[in-house]
């Protein structure tokens, strides 16, 4: 087993992503030394938290053979209602309730996705396009459009939670956000679930061949309910963290975030046809996107060009994967 994984190291998407990540970091660092400052690195890590949690959810959905573009809308809905409710009761308790609330809203909305999918046999792209839009509209029409900047105290406290904090000689403060631990714990949890549990293997199985999964004895419908609700719950968590970190509950937030997240997941090696991908790859994909977005400024690339670069990296990376797999196909046939 070990020798095999060694032989396959060079075939693995994760390996090449890591190389790309290192090369990119070295290049940026060489052009602008400020890249390696603790301040910059910590802020890069901080930027991966929300995108990363979203990406874990999208990763699950894509592996199961589906797609979800409703999650930013669900995230905004969940955190905005949560914040509005907590403000109305002047909540001052622990951070647990806001998290639980936002997560539950997200999970319920995800469940709606799954139910629509399985009862009408619709394409997930259409369903999630629809629910995303409906939820956004509902929020703005019935709940409010005002940006709330006076968050409840527990959320403000949460945003100040740091694992590491130091005041430098020049008086500036560097800190490493504790919320990163949440991403890490979720990633490990999902990794273990996908690799070591029947549930996780079932998600890979339905992404590979749904009919075959049914014949083996998986309850495909229930697996799908789980995947979409779980993704919704993750969106709720990501939403409340996002709102806490920027200290703002803005109902117009996160619009268009889905494209970046899907790009990261696909870059991480998940196949849009389902059944393929890994948590490690997903995190690397997120890191790459965040690095590109956060560092191009440092090397003097104007911000409008970030999108161009992300687009090019996405096409190149997925193109390379497709090219490699086609080549190994031909090798197998000969």
């Amino acid at each position, binding site marked *: *087993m070990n020798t*095999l994984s060694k032989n396959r190291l060079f075939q693995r998407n994760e390996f090449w992503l890591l190389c790309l990540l290192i090369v990119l970091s070295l290049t940026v660092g060489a052009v602008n030394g400020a890249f390696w400052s603790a301040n910059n690195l910590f802020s890069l890590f901080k930027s991966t938290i929300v995108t990363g949690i979203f990406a874990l959810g999208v990763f699950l959905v894509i592996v199961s053979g589906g797609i979800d573009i409703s999650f930013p809308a669900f995230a905004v809905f969940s955190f905005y209602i949560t914040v509005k409710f907590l403000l109305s009761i002047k909540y001052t308790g622990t951070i647990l309730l806001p998290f639980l609330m936002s997560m539950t809203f997200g999970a319920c909305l995800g469940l709606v996705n799954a139910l629509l999918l399985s009862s009408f046999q619709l394409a997930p792209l259409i369903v999630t396009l629809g629910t995303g839009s409906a939820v956004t509209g509902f929020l703005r029409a019935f709940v409010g459009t005002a940006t709330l900047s006076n968050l409840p105290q527990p959320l403000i406290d949460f945003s100040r939670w740091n694992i590491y904090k130091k005041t430098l000689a020049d008086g500036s403060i560097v800190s490493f956000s504790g919320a990163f631990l949440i991403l890490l714990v979720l990633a490990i949890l999902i990794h273990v679930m996908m*690799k*070591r*549990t*029947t*549930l*996780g*293997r*079932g998600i*890979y*199985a339905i*992404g*590979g*061949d749904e*009919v*075959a*999964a049914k*014949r*083996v*004895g*998986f309850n495909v419908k229930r697996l799908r309910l789980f995947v979409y609700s779980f993704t919704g719950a993750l969106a709720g968590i990501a939403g409340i963290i996002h709102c806490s970190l920027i200290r703002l509950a803005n109902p117009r937030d996160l619009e268009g975030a889905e494209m970046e997240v899907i790009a990261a997941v696909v870059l991480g090696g998940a*196949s849009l046809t*389902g*059944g*393929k991908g890994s948590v490690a790859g997903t995190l690397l994909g997120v890191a790459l996107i965040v690095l590109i977005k956060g560092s191009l400024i440092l090397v003097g690339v104007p911000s409008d060009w970030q999108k161009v670069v992300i687009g090019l990296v996405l096409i190149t990376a997925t193109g390379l994967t497709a090219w490699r797999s086609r080549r*190994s*196909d031909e090798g*197998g*046939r000969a």
Partner: protein
Amino acid sequence: MSKTLIKLTDIDKSFGAASVLRKVSLQLDEGEIHCLAGENGSGKSTLIKIISGVYRHDAGRIELGGRHYPTLRPIDAIREGVQVIYQDFSLFPNLTVAENLALSDQVESGRAWVSWQRVEAIARESLALIGVDMDTSRLVEELPVSGKQLVAIARAVYCNARVIIMDEPTTTLTDREIASLFALIRRLKERGIATLFVSHKMREMLDITERITILRNGEKVAEGRTEDFDEAGITRAMTGRDIRSDRYVWNGVRSDPVLELRDFTRTGDFQGLNLSLYKGEIVGITGLLGSGRTELAETLFGLRNTRERPGGEKNSGKILRNGREIKVRSVSDAIAEGIAYVPEDRLTEGIFAEQPIERNLFANSYPRFKNALGLLDRAKLRELSSALIRAYNVVASNLKLPIRTLSGGNQQKVMLARWISTGAEVLLLNGPTVGVDVGARFEIYRKLREIAAGGVGILLFSDELQELISNCNRIFVINRGRFTHELDTGALQEDELSALLGLSLEEAIQ
């Protein structure tokens, strides 16, 4: 006295008003290799689904392993050791061989956690049961068809199969792979595992099976030991008519060939091919997989680019149509020169499965139906389509239905009609009867002869020797990209041709 595993008595099944099975009986003993034969629509698949518990029978008696099942559920069938290997194998392409083998055990045992040691152990054990060695860490999608089939069989055997039902298991296998599949089936037999083989390939039925049950129109028309049958007998039972396989005789004159190849060479595929095809001839071209057979067909139709490969021999030689040199660089070149092609893999290359029959019929000839305004002349289309459907004997209730609703034979007839109606003078046919049942097969042969009689030259690329011998007046054997023999079929016997090809099936097994 061996034990009876499956005993069906007087099974009836109908869907709504359509009666699919009428008083069908079938018996399968331990270790028996049994063939269930019949044309498409004869009720074979329905019968299999009844045995595996997918469909309920309306009347009759089902006994599995000596037990009577008034209603048989899929889980009962599995517990009695009935395992069906579907044509698509029902595997997970994205998972490893090991996991594919172990997954049903994982689900069935209700374990929440996966132990990868256990998965590997189950995989090893499953493969050992069928005596096959394979890299269990490979993804199933990387395996050739035969490898996927082995994984499916290993999985079935591991699930305590006592009867393995295989639906058309040899359709996409090469001769060598078929030989090793047969060897495996015989090994399973020694362990008491019975195989129910669903097929309509004569050679295989006679070769491997011990007993045959033949269905026609939902009724059992014959049953018995294989040695009591011959090809003609099986065909008669399956189709209900005597189909004479008289040979094709060509009485034309050898002048002014419609198609001529002179030293025709394509780097890496074939070299120095010389051939003249005359009006009304049906010329067979046969060779093993990879001999250059399919490559030649595709090159003549412009499907392979004519770019030279680095380091190879140069592409050279000439194609002449009616004595005039032509270049075929693309499919549209070929069509413009009156060359038509019916591909081997009809489903993916030839038909538009979801499109109506009528559109499939005219897919390549719409420009001919322009009216004065440059729009399609609907009336003319309708008129011609019904005329073609009649002329080609296509059995179709409605031309607006998607072509996938037709049987393989009828799809093939639509393909022929499509090309001949455009006035092609050279017809290239690649494996024209793959996946077509016997009755429709003979109709296709008859149609080919009619087309040839109309002055078309036909090149028939095939590896079904009997088909070649009875329908061609000449046969070229291609081996490693060269024509090694040119044979007149007048007195040619199948074993002579088979010897030339070096693919005698018995030899391959031993």
